[in-house]
């Protein structure tokens, strides 16, 4: 439900990241990392982004979403593993003092700009 707000933030960050020498260039792809422990639905985000990006340099750009698994480390025994079910108890010792190592990401990694100048340095 809040995906439109997130789409607008992505749009803003991406537009601000277009290099000055490519001002006016179109963006073909936005690479995102989204943790599985975030409240973001990828399909809704793509849908909102497509609408939000109309008439901007990101019109038609693809949102490439890399899903980041939830990984944890047990504070008691040091076990590290990937959590696939909503069970936040150590799979080794049963302890509950976990440190979540990944899965809360909602990061923009890069944008791929169409370099119509034919630049070779990309």
């Amino acid at each position, binding site marked *: 439900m809040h995906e439109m707000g997130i789409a607008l933030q992505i749009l803003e960050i991406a537009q601000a990241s277009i290099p000055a020498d*490519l001002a006016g260039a179109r963006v073909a792809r936005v690479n995102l990392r989204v943790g599985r422990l*975030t409240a973001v639905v990828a399909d809704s985000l793509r849908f909102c982004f497509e609408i939000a990006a109309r008439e901007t340099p990101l019109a038609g750009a693809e949102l490439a979403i890399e899903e980041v698994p939830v990984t944890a480390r047990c504070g008691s025994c040091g076990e590290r593993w990937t959590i696939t079910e909503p069970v936040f108890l150590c799979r080794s010792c049963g302890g509950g003092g976990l440190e979540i190592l990944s899965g809360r990401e909602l*990061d923009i990694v*890069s944008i791929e700009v169409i370099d119509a100048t034919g630049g070779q340095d*990309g």
Partner: protein
Amino acid sequence: MAEKAPLREVRVVGRVLAVNERMAEENRRRFAARGVFVVNVMSSPGSGKTSLLQKTLAALAPRVSAAVIVGDVATTHDAERLAVTGVPVVQVNTDAFGGDCHLAAHVIERAAEDLDLGAIDLLFVENVGNLVCPAEFDIGEDARVVVLSVTEGEDKPVKYPAMFRTCHAALLNKIDLLPHLDYDKARALAYIRQVHPGMPVFETSARTGEGLAAWVDWLLAGLERKRAAAGR
């Protein structure tokens, strides 16, 4: 999509919600400077947040100067219900901000301008009824609390793990209704423990007042820690 022109990848590397997170930190600093303990109360619609807050405010009244920012998509009904307690109440209607399903940090910043922070010890933020979106938005609070009522499914904690993982306490509300329901309380508590082991859970009834004392004590302990940190 085949593109003739070459693509240049530009590294960005940033949090998508960086703007909100920055504003939340500003809110946190502002609240800390005044020694205000801020509690973000979240739940599904209809879990009894407003009734619970009414009773909580009444229990705190002699000892603590409280205020409430209440978020709803529309109407001022909750603010009207809370205003009878005599504490300052600021209603935020998110439809003015695009019908949002959560309160974001900039909304709290604006709402807090209507409060005399110097005269407040404890600020409750009654978030928009929703177990999904508010989990993602830091508003500058000290404590995040989720209210679950026994008229909802026992499995809400595992359906909304992001919410239950990011909270510091849970309230299982409307326990006065248990004799009339087939609710499996043990199962609900087990699910909460499974998603967030060690998180305090308070079993409450806003209607009868049962269990409210322990919840109020928890709030007072948090407030004490905040005051100590602010050197008061």
